[in-house]
């Protein structure tokens, strides 16, 4: 019997129906599970196993392969700092250091309050706007160490329900890889990608604040 609410089960059914074989739904369902509990719990993995007809061990084998399935709490806001080659050349190590110091958490850790997780990430595909940082996978380009500190302070103070890439870029970003030009209508509500079928998006109003 599923522990998920009827609404979440509805989402799970829709996800499974997208594939010719239900095992293919493992990855999206793991994100759906994260969206229920804030991170990937053992109960979540067992649930995914039931939906996909494989064993919990097989689900765990998949979950442990990919970096974005967090099997420990990573806070409400997961701050990922790219430290790959292009970002490194433009000072990402200093940005990472500033994030760690301001949050009081080193790579892979969460701050004392359990609010902000910090990690370094491999290339985020924002090399033309290096250094890049993501909050719950919402991108900010052209981040300086000072702006990185301000970002952590802001998350602590404002505690936004939704983080949105345009708002973050405006507050803490600089040069971008290319002209963004188009405003996003939604943002992320937790440390997993904001995508409609996972139910992990929330609308953002026109002025950039969450509605």
């Amino acid at each position, binding site marked *: 019997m599923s522990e998920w609410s009827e609404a979440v089960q509805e989402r799970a059914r829709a996800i499974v129906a997208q594939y010719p074989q239900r095992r293919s739904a493992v*990855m999206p369902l793991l994100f759906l599970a994260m969206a229920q509990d804030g991170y990937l719990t053992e109960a979540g993995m067992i649930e995914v196993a039931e939906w996909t007809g494989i064993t919990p061990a097989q689900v765990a084998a998949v979950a442990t392969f990919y970096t974005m399935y967090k099997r420990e709490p990573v806070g409400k806001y997961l701050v990922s700092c790219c430290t790959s080659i292009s970002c490194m050349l433009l000072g990402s190590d200093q940005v990472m250091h500033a994030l760690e110091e301001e949050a009081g958490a080193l790579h892979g850790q969460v701050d004392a309050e359990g609010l902000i997780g910090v990690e370094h990430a491999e290339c985020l595909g924002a090399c033309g706007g290096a250094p890049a940082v993501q909050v719950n996978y919402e991108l900010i380009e052209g981040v300086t160490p000072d702006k990185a500190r301000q970002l952590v302070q802001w998350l602590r103070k404002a505690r936004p329900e939704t983080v949105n890439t345009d708002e973050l870029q405006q507050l803490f970003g600089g040069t971008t890889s290319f002209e963004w030009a188009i405003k996003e209508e939604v943002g992320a509500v937790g440390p997993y990608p904001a995508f409609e079928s996972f139910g992990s998006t929330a609308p953002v109003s026109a002025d950039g604040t969450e509605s």
Partner: protein
Amino acid sequence: MTYPLLVTKRMTDFPSDSHTLERYEATGGYKAARASVGMTRDQLVEAIKNSGLLGRGGAAFSAGLKWSFLAPARPAYLVVNADESEPGTFKDRQLLERDPHQLVEGIIITAIANEVHRAFVYVRGEYPKPARRVQKAIDEAYAEGYLGKGIFGSSYDLDVVVHLGAGAYICGEETALINSLEGLRGEPRLKPPYFPAAVGLYNKPTIVNNVETLSNLPHILNQGIDSYKGLGHEADTGTFLFSISGHVKKPGNYELPHGITWNELIFDIAGGMRRERRLKTWIPGGASAPWFVPSDHLELPITKDDTAKAGSMLGSGAVVVMDEATCVVRAAERIVRFFAHESCGQCTPCREGTSWLEMILRRIEAGQGREVDFDLLLDVSDNISIGLAWPPRMTTICPLGPSAVSPIISITKYFKGEIMTHIHDGGCPLPA
């Protein structure tokens, strides 16, 4: 000097709404897809083969030829590789965000050419915004009857699903991507037997194409093969998207023809070096590519063949530029660390070798290098890719392991003095 644009033209002309269906259709969108509904597989495959279009994901293999290899069994599947993760590469992100309908149209054309009724777009998990844009474009195409049952009023059905990755570079390798899509760990499969065109997704014939490759298709059909070829340079037809990053004044994505020189690309198009520092070295085609240096390569024309002859590749088009103040040990360590982190762990030479290379580079950078470390770097590399040849010889299922050898070959060849200074002086002469 300006060059004609194809895949970035709409977003350049209409920056505020290039992603919308209205703008897409007002600028000739879906014309090619509509026309291809009435075309046969042979006609479409021949057209793309004759256009000379090479895959833009890194391997630069003929897209039409790849299609022609599709085995006759059905169903067949199309998988769009939008798992862009090669360090230095950010071109597909721009195409996904700024012109998603162009990709959807490319998907429709490819599906018809390969008798595919089910396509999957595998977008890397760290690209939620591009994934949302593509999903929106797909939803709009369904609403218009361009996707779903009986597309464009024909009897042809086509469904497209966006599938998010979850942070594994290796899933950009096509057989790993297929495993990932099947709900398995993203580990590359052995070829043979697992050539996707014969034994791909769910062991069915499968086409795997990159975002930029598919984005070119509407233009090829709309403007005709001769006109498309005319934009390029000899064997390298059409345009090519370069992602330029690092110590240049104007980093970004640039759509260019092949055949210009590295000098023109770095100093004219990308604005030259920041802080007027001198150019030390650059990576011509993504983190997997051996590096170039000004003394040998600056006047070389940028073509697939010239780059291969000089011992490197254009790969995914990612050019990473480093100035004279860059420590090459640190730069190499960062690239090797990437491959060590992203190694799937199946093959011992890669799993163990990349980690050892990372550790050796780290201790050299930290001033704890030993005299033998220079040879040790080469020895470990030789165990991953025997003979340190280009193109690399393989001891592994996929090219990830040998990719980690590229920076080692580069720094030991061009910057031996700098490595030995680290070792002899007990530290980095160029601290960050």
